[in-house]
């Protein structure tokens, strides 16, 4: 008999007999479901945050920071450096031949949250008013108007406006000892800026009695813009700055937090998976012993050991994949689309609001984990099944 026909026949027998072993089979399903549920729920946090930060960055923008500054908060650029940076080649120009760039300063501010009244941190970003919309075309106002330079006016990101008291249109929050007026609400497509508040750079610097900027964000002039700009900035002896493509910068920002979370998720889930493997072993051993006569009969009429091994493995796999589907479905039903916030923006100092998203990539990961559990849990029992002495097993009937 051909191996494939054997495999098909034996596997289909073992799968069709599953209903008679519902209770013990459910153990594998529940075990892997638990592992996958916890894994996906925690990973949804880290991928949700990474997605949000990655959306913030664009490949055609670059960000200039002080040398060796890990993030915007830790960077400080004096006024004359900024002027030199804006004169560098590789930056796209507007119709009036000015660099499309925003010199920015950020301050983290504490405001009471709407839901529990507790203070929570968000970022006030001073931006170059003239170039803001040309630099960040994804940003558009959904309510109100743009702030006016020189006045203490701000526009508020959609997510921030929903989360904090006093940040609705017309709200008058207090930053740095002054009252500011919310004149607009903006949407930048789900990135980290949606959790921020933006105002005119000079007004913001004055309010905080600061004289240095944190960063310069600029639009690159075509695909070669970045290398031109980087070469120019690095070879200027008066500057000590680093320049990153914005997309790389935000990817790096999300990494610390995301890798911490996924480390926790993987540590917990590895331990859970070990538990689930024991459960799977248990179930499959008992499945093999209930089916001992049936397996022996198959062997007696000429089926090979390989077929038996594979059929047991397939049964364990099917059950664990079923469990993965249950766990992933549960995680999706409970958490997908939820809005959460975590301390992750501006170098871990400000809250970023983001959505949990349990998508295809996470589903696949869940299935992979389940398969590993199923394979390990099925292997030893499968070998035992293949080794059952035919005569002994058949004699047990009598």
């Amino acid at each position, binding site marked *: 008999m051909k191996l494939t026909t054997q495999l098909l026949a034996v596997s289909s027998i073992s799968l069709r007999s599953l209903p008679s072993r519902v209770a013990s089979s459910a*153990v594998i399903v529940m075990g892997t479901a638990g592992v996958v549920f916890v894994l996906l729920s925690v990973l949804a946090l880290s991928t949700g945050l990474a997605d949000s930060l990655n959306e913030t960055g664009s490949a055609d923008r670059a960000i200039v920071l002080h040398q060796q500054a890990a993030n915007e908060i830790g960077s400080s650029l004096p006024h004359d450096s900024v002027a030199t940076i804006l004169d560098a080649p590789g930056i796209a120009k507007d119709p009036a031949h000015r660099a499309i760039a925003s010199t920015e300063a950020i301050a983290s501010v504490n405001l009471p949250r709407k839901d529990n009244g507790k*203070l929570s*941190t968000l970022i006030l970003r001073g931006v170059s008013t003239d170039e803001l919309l040309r630099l960040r075309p994804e940003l558009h106002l959904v309510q109100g108007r743009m702030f006016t330079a020189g006045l203490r006016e701000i526009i508020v990101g959609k997510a921030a406006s929903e989360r904090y008291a006093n940040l609705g249109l017309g709200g008058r929050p207090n930053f740095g000892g002054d009252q500011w007026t919310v004149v607009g609400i903006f949407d930048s497509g789900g990135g980290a800026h949606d959790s921020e508040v933006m105002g005119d750079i000079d007004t913001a610097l004055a309010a905080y009695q600061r004289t240095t900027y944190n960063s310069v964000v600029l639009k690159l002039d075509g695909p070669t813009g970045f290398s031109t700009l980087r070469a120019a900035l690095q070879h200027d002896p008066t500057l000590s700055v680093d320049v990153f493509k914005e997309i790389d910068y935000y990817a790096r920002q999300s990494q610390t937090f995301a890798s911490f979370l996924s480390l926790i998720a993987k540590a917990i889930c590895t*331990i859970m998976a070990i*538990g689930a493997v024991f*459960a799977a072993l248990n179930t499959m*051993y008992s499945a093999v012993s209930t089916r001992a006569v049936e397996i022996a009969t198959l062997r007696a009429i000429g089926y090979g050991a390989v077929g038996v091994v594979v059929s047991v493995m397939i049964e364990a796999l099917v059950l664990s994949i079923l469990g993965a589907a249950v766990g992933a479905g549960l995680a999706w039903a409970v958490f997908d689309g939820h809005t959460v916030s975590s*301390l992750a923006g501006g170098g871990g100092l400000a809250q970023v609001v983001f959505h949990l998203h349990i998508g295809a990539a996470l589903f696949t990961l869940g299935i992979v984990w389940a398969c590993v559990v199923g394979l390990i849990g099925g292997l030893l029992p499968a070998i035992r099944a293949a080794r059952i002495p035919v005569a002994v097993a058949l004699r047990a009937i009598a």
Partner: protein
Amino acid sequence: MKYLPLVWAALRRKPTRTLLTCFSIVTAFFLFGTLQGINVGIDNVLKLTSVSHLIVQSRVNQGAAMPLAHKVQIESIPGVTAVAPFGIVIGTYQQPSNPMVIIGTDFDAMLKISTDLMVTPDQAAAMRRTRNGVIVGVTTMKQYGWKVGDRIPLRGIAPKADGSNDWQFDIVGTYTLQQPDWATRIFANYDFVNEALATGKNQSILFYVGINDPAKSAAIAQAIDDRFANSPNQTNTANEKDSIETTLGQIGDRKLLINGVCIAVLFTLLFLTFNTIAQSVRERTAELAVLKTLGFTDASVQWLVLAEALTLAMVAGALGVALASRVLPWLTSGPTLAAQGIGAQHIPGLVYAAAAAVALVLALISGVIPAWRARQLNIVAALSGR
């Protein structure tokens, strides 16, 4: 007790199954112990933090510096007994991978405010005499093998006023706390640090404020914040507990996460143990019938099955928690936690008790149906194989 051999025999009947179930329970309780240990550990940090003093931070920006001039103004508020500033030097010791935070403060004021800080009087006096003196927590002393009298060189992140990055501190004493593991800070003299700094002079990232009546802490905190309400450097004052809670709260809902994981783990486990016991009872139908024939009552057969579940859950559960009690202190003894004043955690008694209760409930729930089946067993039907 005389049933013990019977329980033991039942468990040994299928050693693979018992062992595997046992391992699953061990892993589950290991996770339960570790996670709840962390949970309760954080709660304990919160509990041990005092409400007897206040912490003033910048409202504008957590961790942002406030002018030292705030100190005098806070001292003038009724109910305030002492104010200690925190001027921070961040540097590395020997290797870039050994980050170190030196807190420049008024150590006498710290002693007055923080009554749990234990220092011998002559070491406190030495701190007053030695400008570059530092008082180091016992845990940090042990970690780096320092002795009183040692001079520790430090490479600062930011340059000093004299252009160099090198700091020298003399260890004049050590402090300990009721929880010695948490004595991880390094205190220096504010004046010494302030003078040497190039930037950020006359600033403080927080003020420790002693108050004469803990019951009035909320009113005094409000009075401090009101004092600076119209200044560019607004303050946010809270007792230590609230302040830590706010910071932790921003990271995420820790309890929900941990409890969620524990429930998922235990629920899965419930299924497994139930299955093991049920299967074992099913297989032993004839044997149980024999016991009944020999004169065992329905009730004692039922208890026999329950005892089996209990033994399994209790023994494996105890093993799991014991494993966790070994791993947790190792897990929480990292240098990053130590820098925040958090030392190695041990599983508190409460978690042991909770684990025992969970094991009990687990055994009862998973054993009750098989036990009831064993009780209902009809001798004739069971023995004739019907």
